[in-house]
């Protein structure tokens, strides 16, 4: 089992990067959806959207 650490490191990094990217996509998509909903709301109701 010589060099097991290298094998472990390679596979861990691959999965960490892929998993990290999936989480990034998910969080960004959620944030953008919220932004789109808010913007659509302000387009549909221009008088109430920007009033102080």
């Amino acid at each position, binding site marked *: 089992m*010589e060099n097991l650490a290298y094998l472990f490191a390679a596979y861990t990094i691959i999965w960490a990067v892929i998993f990290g990217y999936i989480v990034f996509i998910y969080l960004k998509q959620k944030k953008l959806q919220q932004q789109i909903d808010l913007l659509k709301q302000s387009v549909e109701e221009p008088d109430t959207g920007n009033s102080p």
Partner: protein
Amino acid sequence: MNIKRIFGENLLIVLGFALMIAALYMVFMYVPTDKHTGIVQRIFYFHVPVAWVAFLAFFITFIFSILYLWKRDIKWDTIASASAELGVIFTSLVLITGPIWAKPVWGVWWTWDARLTTSLVLWVIYVAYLLVRSFASEPDRGAMFSAVVGIVGFIDVPIVFLTVNLWRTQHPTMIIFEGGLTTSMLVTLLVCIAAFTVLYLVLIKRAARLKQMESEVRRIKNIVA
């Protein structure tokens, strides 16, 4: 989102998941340990598919960049840029897993070998592609300039692929095409390639959707402003 689309997307995820489980089983339980390089050779079963996906991603960027410049339709740019982003991620993984394999086998993490150097150049080209987009004053200009980078930069992909034949390199040659793998090794590699290809398809769909949403936000902001 219609039922057919949800079903198709979920089917792809299930297929990718099943293939990935099969790939991991084959890499760690089925395929025999290489006599020369030992257990560390198992990195090869993920290193090669990751490189394949990077090439595929840049090929998709190349095709859709041409389509964008030709038709000037933002949907082609959305796919091209999403694929370039994935290509950079997968090339980064190639450049990380390669040295992890090289250290115990060659004794060094990195050498300025033709395959390694051209792979690093490829990574730099597509990082530049992403930077051109983010620094552009207008999204349309960014899309146009990055499309040019995406097309010209693709020249490096066949160069990276052929380096082991064109120059004397330290990097292993294309043993897949030279019959240097046993049947079990070849089958394992093909399953891993299939698993990563499906993973790419799942990710490109999600990433392209994200880019689409970003341009939608910009469009609505312009209406509001």
